[in-house]
């Protein structure tokens, strides 16, 4: 045992190609108890953790994104590789655990070969040996160890078999750390006479000839499958000893079928997409009710005053508007996680790559775009998986055009206003139309932005799509769940504070300076009094001043300052639009009928300056169009700045999408009026 307490905690870094079982090993060693860290000055995100106490290793464990080789292609990969040589905070790793899939040694040995060549202290962790055994093969750890000149341990991700052995080897390495000279490791991407990947592959082929052993004869193999394996083995000889998983090939005959493949893809995505809405709705209502009740509780039990309102309408409602999206984000990450873990998502990206490449995007843009229909914030973060910078920025650029769920209550209200009471079925059709319209317009916008992209982003041009299609397997529910949990936590931490701060700013603007209005209290209930006070307060607030200030630009699109105020308050979160509309139009009952009451008062509202009716078919349709395009979400702006590394893209997004919204609304309203629809 070491007695020196001042000794720095050793750093163990996990590296490996994508789909090599790296994350499973990380979860096993860390007990899923990890925190995310960002590399300074980049968006590359890592997980770090202490190794579980039961393993008795005092070391920091760092996970890293999957890399195929040490020669980086994308900027994010470059940071990942550079940080192996010298992490800005943690230094050079003392031990590298390199995971390799035993069934894919012909490809996966490249990375450990390169790392050993560069002088890293490597332990190779062989994963998926159980799958290889099913194919009737076994890799000799000792032979591979001799060939690679490093330690090799087999670990089974599911049964945890081999973990003890790995821990032992790690401890041994840590005890002998003084024999390992980190100084030899140098960063040199571009040394001319360095070994090339082809050299390494040639060496790997030599290694592969020596390391396979027959399965232990004591193992139970039934005759039928053994014979089948034999046939497979004979086939494999012609294919360098490797062939893809038979079951995967069979499934792909259906899922990657020329015609049915795409139909199934659309179905899967349709189900994913609708589940975000329908599964989440009851939970969202629950959260909404909880915070409304909490709000009422505070208002009823404390003296009315600015502090009470700060608590109730500022902090409680603000927190509510952050948490109300958590169910959707949970479900989205859960479904996408299951699809990803099963191996389907990579196929989805392949199927959609061609259409998306036509508008300057990539097959990998697809998942972030679908996520955008729930919420733009996790969607923008998800765009990190796109290796090409240009395609990644373009994807982030158009994500705000995906009609996120916060716009749904606004659409619902305006559709309810537009359609006659006896034709409620029309609502669903209009809603479907809105989504279709938003998909089509985002395609058009992406196409146009792509044409002008050279003026917007200066990034490399070469577009690439090379993606491993992993073997199909049953998703591992526990790891999907923990990933879902962590992604949702990330959303709350990232977007939460911003949404809360802006809710507080808007609370201030809508409450001051006329904080305590005097109202006639005779013969009305407490709730009615509350609501009258609220609308009085809002009418004389700073937000109303702001609304009146922008009225000149609202009038051409058929709207007045009251809608202006509501649009301003919608900047905290779009769904606030409905409640703030209710306040500006003095809706005084607060029960189940409130939407009907709001509808009635909307029907009667007139523009004060002109005496025209305010909410006509034309202006309501215009408002829907406005919400389809406008980037009215300050949290999106903040995340976009963080992820693109500057203000240029978020500012352009706000300017372009908001002016587009204005122009399209103008065209809609005046176009409808021109053809006689008021």
């Amino acid at each position, binding site marked *: 045992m070491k007695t020196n307490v001042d000794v720095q905690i050793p750093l163990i870094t996990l590296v490996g190609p994508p789909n090599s079982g790296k994350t499973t090993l990380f979860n096993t060693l860390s007990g899923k108890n990890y925190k995310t860290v960002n590399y300074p000055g980049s968006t590359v995100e890592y997980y770090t953790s202490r190794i579980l106490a039961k393993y008795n290793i005092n070391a920091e464990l760092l996970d890293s994104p999957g890399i195929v080789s040490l020669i980086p292609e994308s900027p994010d990969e470059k940071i990942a590789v550079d940080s192996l040589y010298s992490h800005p905070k943690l230094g050079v790793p003392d031990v590298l655990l390199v995971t390799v899939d035993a069934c894919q040694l012909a490809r996966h040995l490249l990375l450990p070969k390169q790392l050993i060549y560069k002088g890293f202290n490597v332990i190779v962790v062989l994963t998926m040996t159980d799958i290889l055994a099913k194919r009737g093969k076994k890799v000799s750890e000792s032979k591979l160890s001799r060939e690679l000149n490093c330690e090799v341990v087999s670990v089974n991700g599911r049964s945890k078999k081999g973990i003890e052995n790995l821990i032992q080897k790690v401890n041994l390495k840590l005890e002998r750390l003084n024999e390992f000279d980190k100084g030899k490791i140098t960063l040199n991407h571009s040394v001319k006479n360095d070994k090339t990947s082809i050299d390494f592959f040639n060496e790997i082929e030599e290694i592969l000839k020596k390391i396979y052993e027959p399965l232990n004869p004591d193992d139970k193999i039934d005759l039928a499958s053994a014979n089948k394996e034999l046939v497979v083995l004979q086939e494999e000889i012609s294919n*360098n000893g490797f062939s893809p998983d038979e079951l*995967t090939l069979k499934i792909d005959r259906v899922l990657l079928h020329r015609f049915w493949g795409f139909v199934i893809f659309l179905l899967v995505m349709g189900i994913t997409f609708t589940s975000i809405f329908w599964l989440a709705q009851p939970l969202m209502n629950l959260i909404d009710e909880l915070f409304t009740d909490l709000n009422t509780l505070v208002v009823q039990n404390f003296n009315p005053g600015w502090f009470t309102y700060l608590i109730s309408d500022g902090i409680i409602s603000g927190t509510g508007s952050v948490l109300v999206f958590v169910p959707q984000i949970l479900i989205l990450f859960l479904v996408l996680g299951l699809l990803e873990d099963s191996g389907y998502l990579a196929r989805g990206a392949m199927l959609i790559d*061609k259409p998306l490449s036509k508008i300057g995007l990539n097959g990998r843009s697809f998942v972030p775009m679908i996520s955008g229909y729930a919420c733009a914030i996790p969607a923008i973060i998800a765009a990190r998986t796109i290796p090409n910078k240009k395609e990644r920025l373009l994807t982030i650029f158009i994500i705000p055009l995906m009609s996120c769920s916060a716009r749904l209550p606004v659409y619902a209200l305006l559709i309810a206003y537009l359609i006659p009471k006896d034709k409620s079925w029309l609502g669903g059709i209009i809603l479907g139309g809105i989504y279709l319209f938003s998909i089509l317009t985002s395609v058009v916008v992406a196409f146009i932005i792509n044409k002008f992209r050279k003026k917007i982003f200066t990034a490399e041009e070469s577009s690439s799509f*090379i993606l491993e299609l992993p073997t199909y397997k049953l998703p591992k529910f526990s790891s999907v769940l923990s990933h879902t949990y962590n992604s949702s936590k990330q959303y709350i931490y990232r977007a939460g504070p911003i949404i809360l701060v802006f809710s507080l700013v808007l609370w201030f603007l809508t409450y001051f300076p006329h904080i305590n209005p005097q109202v006639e209290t005779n013969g009305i209930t407490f709730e009615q009094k509350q609501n009258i006070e609220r609308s009085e307060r809002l009418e004389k607030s700073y937000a109303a001043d702001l609304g009146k200030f922008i009225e000149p630009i609202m009038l051409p699109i058929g709207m007045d300052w009251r809608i202006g105020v509501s649009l301003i308050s919608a900047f905290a979160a779009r769904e606030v639009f409905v409640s703030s509309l209710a306040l500006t139009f003095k809706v005084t009952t607060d029960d189940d009928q409130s939407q009907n009451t709001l509808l009635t008062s909307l029907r009667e509202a007139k523009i004060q300056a002109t005496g025209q009716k305010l909410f006509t078919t034309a202006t309501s349709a215009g408002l829907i169009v406005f919400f389809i395009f406008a980037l009215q979400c300050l949290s999106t702006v903040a995340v976009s700045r963080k992820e693109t590394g500057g203000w240029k893209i978020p500012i352009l997004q706000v300017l372009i999408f908001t002016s587009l919204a204005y122009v399209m609304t103008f065209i809609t309203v005046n176009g409808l009026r021109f053809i006689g629809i008021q």
Partner: protein
Amino acid sequence: MRTVAELNLGEKGIISEIDFSHPSSKRIIEHGFTPGQIIELINKSTFNDPIAVSIRGTLIAIRKSEAGCIKLK
């Protein structure tokens, strides 16, 4: 000379060389597409592009434009 992009469904070929002038050539080699390897076209997607090939026991989806720089014997 034929390239991987010109393979028919289910057809196998042996890689002869990689066109190094292609910007993706390095990445292609790192995925295991090296001279002498057997490659098989497993699937084509609905719009014919990208294609799924089997190399070194793994399925890899690759755009035709990139598969075009993998030359066959």
